[in-house]
């Protein structure tokens, strides 16, 4: 210690005339660009999935109704209680759409404490238009954005046979994919059968497959089938699709069914221990709609008989969907579970011919019409009456039934939906087997922007060597005009479709007649649309029933204007498996209510 040490502190005086460093007006000081300030929410982008609420460790967020729910949007929006919020921004990080962000605003005066509980984006705030504030870097990182790729058989291996293409996830892949689910449940409303999607996906993560199977068959007796061919509307409502791929819900469903040994199915699905009601129900058509209704009704204790015209049950699942997409064993397993519930299926019986509707009505307490759409439409363009012009549904049926079908070297398909892809790919396989090469041209009215068939169908068809031309309007099936081949099909003449919809989005095709093409082929297959074969109803019942634009009129529960008759599936709605399943449930519920009332009235 020295004298210098006594003087040294006085050097501080040199600062006495310096300008103070104090911030003069702290209330207008702008925070940094990244500052985690008050919340903003792009209300149109937000889907109300509640992931923000789930991650908030302060329980500061409530989901409150703001608009009507619709597909993929719950209509709920987050309300934040600033009495609890700690501005950690995990809600911003987890946000599935990127709608929730933060401004760099941090000053807010109000005398009313409740003002600090607000709905960002709905309750207008001065910082709503702020460009600055916390943004997560590089998108959503707190839940997976990329779908686990499904392994498929290579095109050259699959084109010569009808083996199933999709391999299915193994355990590790499925767990990874299931992990991405945020359990918001937006998909449940969109699924026609309202399957417990987040719950069964959870069973995959937890490895509890038996519980998963139970959940599946609770709401869908065609889980094996839907695990393969469902139109998976759920995936279009999936929250994960906004900044990444939707969860592969369909493949996860299949994974559960793959993991449980079939001999455990009936035990797990379980048959409720109910007394027989003694009431009888006849179901016309063993497709997904009819059999789902049968499954439910049998489990409710009723005696159910399903009448099927074709040789085997399954409807379009068997006779429409090709085996490489849905192996028959999978279908048979689902049907086996349904039969185990006590459902009787009588195949090769055509109602209206072998048994009349009147007799069905007389012998049963209720009848369900679930006859699907089994007649193919024709374009009726000139030449379409030629015997070399086939209808896709008919041809698919014959292929399944093992009948001999003509397999020319070149085939033209009209249509751009999944049925067109099914027949094109089935014929391609037969061509490969018979001729060693594929010669299929698919002409679709729709452009690829508005294509009907699933993207993956288009991709896989092309991999298999099928040519797909979009925006082609069929004008004429060209036939040989003379000689020994007179009347034989030579090809299809098409015009280019300039525009297919008018400005209101309605079908109004406009052709460019100058852009004409002729597609060579010895066979033309029409795969454009289907219609129900309602002739089995007979004239009297057709007259007695009320109709709604070509289809049997039904109420919400699927009941027709005839109190003993219900209708379900593609013939009244659809067309796809899961809608038919949903219909089956609805009809079964309704019938049961009526039958219970009948029993009570008698008692």
């Amino acid at each position, binding site marked *: 210690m020295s004298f210098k040490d006594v003087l040294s502190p006085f050097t501080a005086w040199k600062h006495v005339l310096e300008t103070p460093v104090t911030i003069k007006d702290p209330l207008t000081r702008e925070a940094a660009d990244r500052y985690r300030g008050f919340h903003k929410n792009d209300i149109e982008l937000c889907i109300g*999935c509640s992931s923000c*609420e789930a991650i908030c460790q302060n329980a500061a967020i*409530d989901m409150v109704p703001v608009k009507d*729910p619709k597909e993929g949007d719950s*209509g709920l929006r987050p309300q934040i*209680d600033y009495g609890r919020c700690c501005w950690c921004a995990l809600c911003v990080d987890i946000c599935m759409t990127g709608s929730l962000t933060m401004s760099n605003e941090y000053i807010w005066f109000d005398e009313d404490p409740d003002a600090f509980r607000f709905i960002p984006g709905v309750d207008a705030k001065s910082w709503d238009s702020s460009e600055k504030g916390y943004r997560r870097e590089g998108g959503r990182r707190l839940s997976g954005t990329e779908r686990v790729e499904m392994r498929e058989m290579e095109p050259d291996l699959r084109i010569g046979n009808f083996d199933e293409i999709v391999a299915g996830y193994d355990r590790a892949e499925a767990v990874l994919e299931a992990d991405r689910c945020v359990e918001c449940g*937006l998909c*449940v409303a969109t699924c026609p059968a309202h399957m417990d999607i987040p719950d069964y996906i959870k069973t995959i993560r937890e490895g509890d497959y038996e519980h998963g199977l139970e959940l599946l068959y609770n709401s869908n007796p065609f889980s094996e089938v839907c695990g393969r061919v469902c139109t998976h509307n759920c995936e279009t409502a999936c929250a994960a699709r906004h900044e990444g791929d939707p969860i592969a819900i369909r493949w996860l469903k299949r994974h559960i069914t793959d993991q449980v040994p079939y001999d455990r199915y009936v035990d797990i699905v379980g048959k409720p221990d109910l007394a027989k009601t003694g009431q009888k129900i006849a179901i016309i058509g063993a497709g997904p709609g009819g059999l789902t209704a049968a499954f439910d009704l049998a489990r409710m204790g009723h005696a159910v008989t399903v009448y099927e015209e074709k040789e085997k049950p399954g409807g379009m699942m068997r006779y429409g969907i090709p085996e490489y997409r849905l192996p028959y064993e999978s279908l048979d397993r689902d049907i086996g579970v349904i039969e185990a519930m006590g459902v009787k299926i009588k195949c090769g019986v055509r109602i209206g011919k072998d048994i009349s509707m009147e007799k069905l009505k007389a012998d049963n307490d209720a009848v369900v019409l679930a006859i699907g759409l089994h007649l193919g439409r024709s374009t009726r363009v000139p030449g379409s009456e030629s015997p070399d012009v086939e209808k896709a549904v008919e041809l698919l049926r014959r292929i399944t039934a093992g009948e001999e079908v003509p397999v020319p070297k070149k085939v033209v398909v009209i249509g751009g939906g999944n049925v067109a892809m099914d027949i094109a790919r089935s014929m391609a396989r037969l061509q490969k087997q018979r001729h060693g090469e594929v010669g299929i041209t698919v002409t679709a009215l729709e452009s690829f922007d508005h294509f009907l068939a699933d993207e993956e169908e288009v991709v896989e068809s092309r991999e298999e060597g099928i040519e797909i031309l979009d925006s082609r309007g069929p004008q004429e099936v060209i036939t040989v005009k003379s000689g020994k081949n007179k009347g034989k099909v030579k090809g299809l003449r098409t015009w280019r479709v300039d525009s297919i919809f008018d400005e209101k989005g309605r079908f109004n095709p406009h052709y460019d007649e100058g852009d004409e093409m002729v597609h060579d082929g010895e066979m033309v297959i029409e795969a454009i649309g289907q219609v129900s074969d309602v002739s089995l109803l007979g004239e009297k019942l057709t007259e007695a029933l009320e109709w709604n634009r070509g289809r049997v009129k039904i109420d919400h529960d699927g009941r027709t204007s005839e109190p003993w008759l219900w209708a379900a599936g593609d013939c009244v709605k659809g067309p796809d498996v899961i809608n038919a399943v949903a219909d089956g449930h609805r009809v079964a519920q309704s019938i049961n209510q009526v039958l219970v009332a009948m029993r009570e009235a008698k008692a």
Partner: protein
Amino acid sequence: MMQAIYDRLKDRFQLGALDVRSRKGLAFVDLRREFLRPVLTELRDVEGFTHLILLTAVDWIEDERFQLTYLLNNRQKNLDLGLRLRLDRNLAIGETIHDLWPTAATYQRELREMFGIAFPGSPRVDEEFILEGWTDMPPYRRDFDTLAYSQQTHADREGRETSDPREFMKQILYPKD
């Protein structure tokens, strides 16, 4: 290095398996109660584990036991060693080591308060530490439910209500299904 130390001690003190799954330079080992003091002493005086990093407990309520973790550090060799000791949860009495590391008295006092584990002989072990006037069960035990406590003690803010997207959509979009 850790393995060599372990090998020197394991038979004499009937140590459990050496658990080195976490990170490099850190290992855990199960220890029988009667060997706590000799092992600690030997580790401190012979093996260079002079620094007691921490002493704490884990409640394995489903196994009806507490795990006491004594975490030691050998600075020269850059090794951390965790000794795990099982205590019967229903007879939670530990052995004080304040004479080996005086600072352990603080840890033991906290364990007494938060887990209800007794350390007879530890200085001031029964004095209140963090929780003055606490009468409920020791709060770090697993069966103390913080949420229930909070709900009993504090009122929720009025008017808070939330909806589950799935249930809300069901209620509006398909009430009859």
